[in-house]
């Protein structure tokens, strides 16, 4: 038994040296992190990175091979039944009874918890108001996913796991889900989420752990992650490829790092004014058109792609 005071004083969740293999596949390799109470923590990574494996170990759904895990003061592998009363789980892959209406499903699963949010409030939070009396198999894919969200929060959890909660949502449904997460955060709920969406992580997460091939590749706040490239600006343009020699000459003359790939030039520079001047000067001199020329600040997505882009893990899954 853990008193509430003890929970709020220590991390909601600590993971150290976590490892898990499926046969030859090392799905999670020596991951360590912790999540503070009230924090929104994001696991970010490409398909097959090990996000679901990690969160499902934290939820007690899968076993681990190595490392220690403590969630709300318990080892999820051996936690007593009451442990799941305080956590909410939105699995990436999960079903719901097609024979029940949305409201019936919420009432049914809600009955298992000691605390319960009012069904109508939950329906509204996830944007299913008005659909409560519909059978679940008559819902669209995105609407079905909202049932998963609804069932994740019906027991008013202290700690909520969201494994790719907004996959399949239209833009306004995603905004609504973000507002819901924000609302839960302001009520003090600790949230661990996985995502592929940079804007989602940027909008929601207090801290991010980027993983690829089961290993941590970067960690920090979204701003810190961006900060590693904060002083750099990207200059991009479509580029004529039939001029190998002259291109090389130009690239060496630029102050920033530059790459030409698939007919696109990408320059990352701390001195955009000078490099832009050199680039356009070079182009004017030779009568070369630089289509789609743009000067942009790197987004979190650029940072992310830089971090995981070269990882072979991306290819194994899709």
């Amino acid at each position, binding site marked *: 038994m853990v008193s509430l005071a003890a929970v709020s004083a220590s991390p909601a969740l600590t993971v150290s040296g976590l490892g898990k293999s499926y046969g030859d596949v090392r799905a999670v390799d020596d991951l360590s992190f912790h999540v503070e109470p009230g924090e929104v923590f994001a696991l970010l990574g490409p*398909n097959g990175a090990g996000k679901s494996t990690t969160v499902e170990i934290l939820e007690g*759904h899968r076993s681990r091979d190595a490392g220690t895990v403590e969630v709300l003061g318990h080892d999820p592998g051996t936690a007593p039944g009451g442990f799941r009363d305080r956590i909410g789980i939105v*699995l990436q*892959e999960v079903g719901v009874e097609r024979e029940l209406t949305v409201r019936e499903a919420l009432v049914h699963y809600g009955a*298992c918890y000691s605390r319960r949010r009012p069904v109508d409030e939950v329906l509204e939070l996830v944007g299913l108001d008005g659909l409560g009396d519909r059978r679940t198999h008559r819902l669209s894919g995105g609407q079905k996913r909202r049932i998963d969200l609804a069932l994740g929060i019906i027991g008013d959890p202290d700690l909520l796991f969201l494994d790719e909660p907004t996959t399949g949502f239209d833009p306004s449904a995603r905004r609504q889900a973000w507002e819901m997460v924000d609302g839960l955060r302001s009520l003090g709920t600790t949230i661990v989420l996985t995502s592929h969406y940079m804007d989602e992580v940027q909008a929601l997460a207090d801290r991010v752990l980027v993983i690829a091939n089961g290993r941590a590749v970067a960690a920090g706040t979204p701003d810190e992650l961006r900060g590693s490239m904060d002083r750099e600006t990207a200059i991009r343009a479509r580029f004529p490829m039939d001029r190998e020699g002259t291109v090389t000459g130009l690239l060496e003359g630029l102050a920033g790092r530059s790459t030409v790939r698939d007919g696109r030039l990408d320059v990352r520079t701390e001195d955009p004014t000078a490099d832009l001047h050199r680039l356009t000067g070079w182009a004017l001199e030779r009568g070369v058109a630089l289509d789609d020329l743009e000067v942009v600040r790197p987004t979190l997505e650029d940072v992310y792609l830089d971090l995981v882009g070269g990882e072979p893990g*991306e290819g194994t899954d899709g």
Partner: protein
Amino acid sequence: MADRLPSPLRLLVHQIGYQNRVFRRVPIAAFFTLAFPLMFLLLFAAIFGDVGISGGHEVAAAQFYAPGLAVFTAASATYTNIGISTAVARDEGILRRVRSTPLPRWVYLGGVVGSGVCIAVFGVALMLTVGIGIYGVDADAGRLLPAVVAFVVGTASFAMLGLALAALAPSGQSSPALAQATILPMAFVSDVFISVGDDPARWLEVVGDVLPLKAFVESFFAAFDPYRTGSAWEPELLVRMGLWGVFGAVVAARRFRWEPSTGSSSGPRGDRSRRHQGRSVPS
């Protein structure tokens, strides 16, 4: 914290009601479990009419068929119904969801079993009501208790075998075939549809005697048997059924899985997963 959790007993009652409701909303399951055996009773009664027994009495064929078909209904309501619906629920990721709630697992399985027993009670009552009401099947009130005990031991055992079936079925899709391929041949050697006769092949008799359904049929039928004069208790048959129940429970305890079989322990590989495979960074 834990003491504020709903009491397991209340949860169990809730679970049984929920499983009953789901059953009622699957017409095909209700048809095969309840209406199908009843159809057989109507057919057999029409085909065989009355049969003569010793002493010059005539007895309706239904006197023999109604109790046997009642037992078949009870076995379908537990074994077939539990085996299929649980294997399908696992494939659909519903057992996975159950596991992510604080509901104790035994309460979930208790709800499955309890609901199977409720359906069996309803089916047996329906069969006997039709048998007694329409075909004049003779039921001796003095033999009610042995029949009830045979029913309780039988449904409990077949419910355990249903859980074992769900545990062993490789997928939800294959579970109906597995259930039918086991229960139907068993019914034929257990005097449900046909009496194996006075002089059956020896092996048919042995197979019937080893499997649990014949013991269920005979121990239940004892209360309706017009030839029988003494007590309607069949302790040996009850033990035989009970042993099968224990066997089912052991298999279920060892092999039951909460995760879908497709894709081992990783969850259903449904539309949803296929849809976002290969989409690593949507913009």
